[in-house]
């Protein structure tokens, strides 16, 4: 089994024989066997050198970097072993063709909203929100251009977030979604969770021949790996939001796990660890796939989404996004 390693300490990471060796400032030493690494997530201040990068490169291991606040700042994305020029050409063609692009962009939103509604259904007092969301969603067929689609998505998201206060317990409230900087605990969790998910999705895209820079819902120039943003739309409500409800309502995370300094709110290292622990648990949770007749983990569902997208792009099978049925 391969693991994601999350490193919170500061120190040095280097190649030592056939392992990755971590030496922290408080002189803790750890060996990570290369075969056991799926990806690395560095939250602390870590020194590393090209020898290590070359080593990770040959195993196709991505390193994700997070800034001081715990938000994604970038990835070391090793050169791919397997590329498909054929697929890339098709990926671009679907971007250039307005209708094709709009079709895919809509699918991502339809799936994302489906999972939002699925979340809300688990709780009482959310009926009105669900109705409003479904009303907004019914206009989606008529939408002629991406910005209009983004408009619908934005309105739906506002309704969805305002429902959070009917769901969250123990004094947690979400007043308004605030991205930069997130200034209250719930906003912090949403941003933090989405950051981690983004890097997970990128890791799954990396394992396929898809080019992560060519996207449909998001403009390919907005962020370096914008396809990762596209696919994250599907999984944010399915994975991250349900985890936020779970960790807060079951008191896994408490208000004490957050620090507010002036205008900035921070999730403590302990808090991050707790959230990531639940996140990893969730990713490895399996569901019996009704078509494949196999147990499939949440992480694999991300990869399957990539596969379906590839099949669509090579004109094999029309893309139908995931709509969690369990």
């Amino acid at each position: 089994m391969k693991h994601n390693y999350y490193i919170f300490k500061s120190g040095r990471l280097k190649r030592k024989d056939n392992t990755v060796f971590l030496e922290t400032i408080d002189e803790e030493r750890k060996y990570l066997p290369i075969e056991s690494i799926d990806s690395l997530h560095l939250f602390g201040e870590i020194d590393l050198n090209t020898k290590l990068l070359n080593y990770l490169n040959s195993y196709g291991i991505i390193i994700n970097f997070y800034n001081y606040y715990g938000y994604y700042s970038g990835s070391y994305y090793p050169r791919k072993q397997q590329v498909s020029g054929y697929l890339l050409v098709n990926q671009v063609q679907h971007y250039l063709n307005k209708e094709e692009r709009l079709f895919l962009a809509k699918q991502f939103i339809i799936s994302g909203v489906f999972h939002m509604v699925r979340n809300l259904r688990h709780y009482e007092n959310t009926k009105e929100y669900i109705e409003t969301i479904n009303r907004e969603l019914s206009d989606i067929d008529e939408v002629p251009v991406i910005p209009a689609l983004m408009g619908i998505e934005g309105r739906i998201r506002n309704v969805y977030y305002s429902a959070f206060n009917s769901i969250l317990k123990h004094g947690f409230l979400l007043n308004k979604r605030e991205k930069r900087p997130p200034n209250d605990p719930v906003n912090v969790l949403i941003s933090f969770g989405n950051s981690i998910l983004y890097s997970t999705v990128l890791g799954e895209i990396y394992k396929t021949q898809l080019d992560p820079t060519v996207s449909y819902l998001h403009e390919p120039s907005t962020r370096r790996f914008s396809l990762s943003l596209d696919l994250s739309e599907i999984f944010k409500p399915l994975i991250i939001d349900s985890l936020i409800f779970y960790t807060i309502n079951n008191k896994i995370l408490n208000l004490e796990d957050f620090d507010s300094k002036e205008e900035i709110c921070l999730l403590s290292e302990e808090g991050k660890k707790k959230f990531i622990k639940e996140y990893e648990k969730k990713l490895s949770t399996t569901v019996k796939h009704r078509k494949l007749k196999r147990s499939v983990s949440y992480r694999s569902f991300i990869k399957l989404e990539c596969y379906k997208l590839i099949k669509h792009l090579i004109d094999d099978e029309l893309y139908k996004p995931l709509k969690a049925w369990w």
Partner: protein
Amino acid sequence: MEFDFQTFKVQGIKVNYYFVCKRKLWLYDKGISMENESDAVLEGKLIHENSYPKAKTREIMIDDLLKVDIIEGDYIKDVKKSSKMRRSDTMQIAYYLFYLKQLGVMKKGTINYVRERKIEKIELTEDLENEIKNALLEINKILDSKKPPRREKLPYCKKCAYYLFCYVEELDNET
């Protein structure tokens, strides 16, 4: 009409895939391959590396298209784990023999099935040659196609690296 070998020749692995699954052939040709960390792949590699440590010539590349395991005297030899994919293995060797014949080299072939300790001999008959020519024409047609051949239910799909890729599908939710 004369069969124009130069136009139709492909890598040996593609002849093999053609007889395994036409969809796999197309996907492989387009560079769409699946991550496969399965032990079967690794085992295959080890068998190749350990089976004939003393043979003089191992893994010879011909024209960048054929990778022949061993050439010894009149024989080219291929090493396989088991005879599960007997037909496609046989056709791959037959293709090598046919290819060599085009270069003016006449050989015979053997496949060494390590697990079963069985050796199979292959000679290039006229029938086999025709089968290869047909396959090469078909292969080129398939590779020219804009989309992959539809998946077929084959007995080994479940063990194929493309299984999840081929079979993943969304059913409509009941409402």
